[in-house]
């Protein structure tokens, strides 16, 4: 129960930060102050809050769980590729969006698209697609909160109550503190993340009697493939470098880029982003792999499920395979290691670090509220008719409604549905990234090109999700190709259902999704009417 008490203290601290931010802004009922902290964040808060915003529960729980099952490949697959692509996109896109926001007062990406391409309803469609892909994150955040509190308290805090507490805390500090509160909480959480990785590594390493013996024993055992990347194909590995393109296309990340006081604040963020990723992910991935050497009944059950799926999975029904996949999932291995090796009070502190990761849905809730009030409420005349104060209150009411909606869904729907939605939302946002590149770097892009990209993104996300839902995943078959193949061309599998998802010519769906998006933007824009010269000059200079 001690770890749960420490976590509750942490939640109280987070709530206090949000309320403090509210007091700091007292009297200001301006949309720009509430939704963007008056574009005034300093370098330290900007770096840590932007980074924290992008780190979900997956950074700690999911990364170690993925590494437990798949080995060290997790780091190269998800972390080091992000360490290159995300800061690069912040450097190229984030800085330009910040400057346009400062010059023209944009508060959301859709506002910029509407202005850049002289469109209105196409902007609304982009808002709808972005919102639809963002909502599952909020739901899964609440589910993660409920599950974590349940596990940390040893079952004393039921899932529904834990989820309600997390939802209430997040809703409260976003409601009161707006962007300022969210940024401060994210900064606090990121410091906890960073401390978490180092402390967990030291404590667990000490508890295991050092990693050298464990690693060498693993190298000499049948678990040795986990120290390599042979469980993942190089095609899949390459495909994954497209996923981090999604980061800059996420509305909450782009909106965060608008909060910097000066453009120079991007410098530290761009440089230190890969180091922050390294500091959090490397220990989590390493510990996830090393968990395979720990003798705990829960871990042995997972390993047994993994073995049964690999050896007998082919002869099983899809439902039985799904059941085994649930059993072998390693998202809780890091918590199991802490239970085993960390003293109770420290397990509580580290549990708070995990809660910090789980609660990353705050900026998504705020971003949805900002988008709704700016892209829908204000755009369709609400701000003009009712004033800015009512706009801010509408944003606050929206925060309550969206959190309640997410909580109710989190209680009723199975988690796997939203995990699937999140899996393909990443690809979806990556497929939307050509919108930003075209808007900022290509004079010739048009609203019709933007429409084609948006429709393609929505259609492809739905198609891949429907395909995966209708064709059950095959069992992994060591030494043979387990894929269910739908057509071949020149010896390549055109479309296949793999044990881990879907492949198109051996690549993850994100590759064709991004490439076709780019192609559609180019072809449709070339064939359609450009915006007025004055608009193009506003973005690229030149003759008006």
């Amino acid at each position, binding site marked *: 129960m001690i770890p749960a008490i420490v976590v509750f203290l942490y939640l109280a601290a987070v709530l206090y930060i949000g309320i403090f931010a509210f007091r700091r802004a007292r009297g200001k009922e301006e949309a720009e102050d509430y939704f963007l902290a008056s574009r005034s964040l300093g370098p330290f808060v900007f770096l840590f809050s932007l980074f924290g915003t992008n780190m979900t529960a997956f950074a700690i729980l999911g990364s170690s769980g993925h590494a437990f099952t798949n080995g*060290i*490949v997790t*780091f*190269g697959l998800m*972390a*080091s*590729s992000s*360490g*290159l692509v995300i*800061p*690069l996109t912040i*450097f190229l896109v984030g*800085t*330009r969006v*910040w*400057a346009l926001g*400062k*010059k023209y007062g944009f508060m959301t990406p859709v506002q910029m698209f509407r202005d850049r391409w002289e469109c209105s309803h196409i902007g609304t469609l982009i808002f709808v697609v972005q919102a639809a892909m963002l909502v599952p994150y909020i739901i899964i955040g609440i589910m993660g909160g409920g599950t974590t509190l349940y596990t940390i308290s040893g079952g004393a805090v039921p899932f529904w109550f834990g989820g309600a507490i997390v939802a209430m805390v997040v809703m409260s500090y976003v409601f009161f503190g707006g962007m300022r509160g969210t940024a401060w909480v994210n900064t606090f959480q990121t410091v906890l993340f960073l401390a978490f990785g180092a402390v967990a590594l030291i404590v667990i390493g000490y508890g295991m009697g*050092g*990693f*050298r013996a*464990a*690693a*060498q024993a693993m*190298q000499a055992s049948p678990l*040795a*493939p986990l*120290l*390599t*990347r*042979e469980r993942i194909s*190089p095609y899949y*590995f*390459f495909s994954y*470098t497209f996923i981090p393109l999604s980061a800059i296309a996420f509305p909450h990340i782009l909106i965060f880029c608008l909060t910097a006081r*000066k*453009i*120079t604040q991007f*410098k530290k963020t*761009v*440089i*230190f*982003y*890969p*180091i922050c*990723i*390294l500091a959090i992910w*490397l220990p989590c*991935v*390493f510990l996830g*792999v090393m968990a395979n050497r720990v003798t705990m009944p829960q871990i042995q059950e997972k390993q047994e499920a993994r073995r049964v799926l690999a050896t007998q999975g082919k002869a099983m029904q899809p439902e039985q395979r799904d059941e085994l996949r649930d059993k072998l999932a390693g998202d809780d291995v890091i918590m199991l290691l802490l239970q085993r090796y960390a003293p109770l009070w420290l397990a509580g502190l580290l549990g708070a670090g995990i809660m910090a990761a789980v609660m990353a849905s705050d900026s998504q809730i705020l971003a949805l509220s900002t988008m709704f009030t700016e892209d829908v409420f204000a755009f369709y005349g609400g701000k003009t008719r009712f004033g800015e104060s009512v706009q801010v209150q509408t944003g606050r009411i929206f925060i309550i409604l969206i959190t309640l909606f997410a909580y109710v869904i989190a209680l009723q729907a199975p988690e796997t549905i939203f995990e699937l939605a999140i899996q393909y939302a990443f690809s979806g946002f990556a497929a939307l990234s050509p919108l930003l590149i075209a808007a900022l770097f290509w004079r010739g892009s048009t609203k019709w090109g933007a429409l084609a990209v948006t429709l393609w993104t929505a259609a492809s996300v739905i198609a891949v999700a429907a395909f995966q839902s209708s064709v059950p995943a095959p069992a992994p078959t060591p030494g043979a190709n387990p894929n269910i193949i739908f057509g071949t061309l020149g010896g390549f599998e055109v479309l296949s259902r793999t044990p881990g998802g879907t492949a198109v010519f051996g690549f993850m769906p994100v590759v064709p999704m991004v490439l076709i998006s780019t192609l559609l933007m180019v072809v449709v824009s070339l064939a359609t009417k450009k915006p007025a010269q004055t608009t193009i000059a506003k973005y690229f200079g030149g003759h008006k």
Partner: protein
Amino acid sequence: MKRILLVVAVVALYILHQDIWFWRSSHLVFGFIPIGLFYHGCFSVAAALLMWLLVTFAWPSHLEQEVEEAEREEGGAR
């Protein structure tokens, strides 16, 4: 020339991410870190260094000037 070199550096680092040469090696660096993990840890440090180069030699300072000009014009209009 400077810009071309930076673009080449970005492309080179992207290619270096696909390190198929350590794919099946379970060699342990310092006796406990798998070489594939060690490589990508070093890759992350190299990415930070590349970002430092970009920030130092290709910083879009014109954006800041544009914003300052726009703010001056706005101030003047008031």
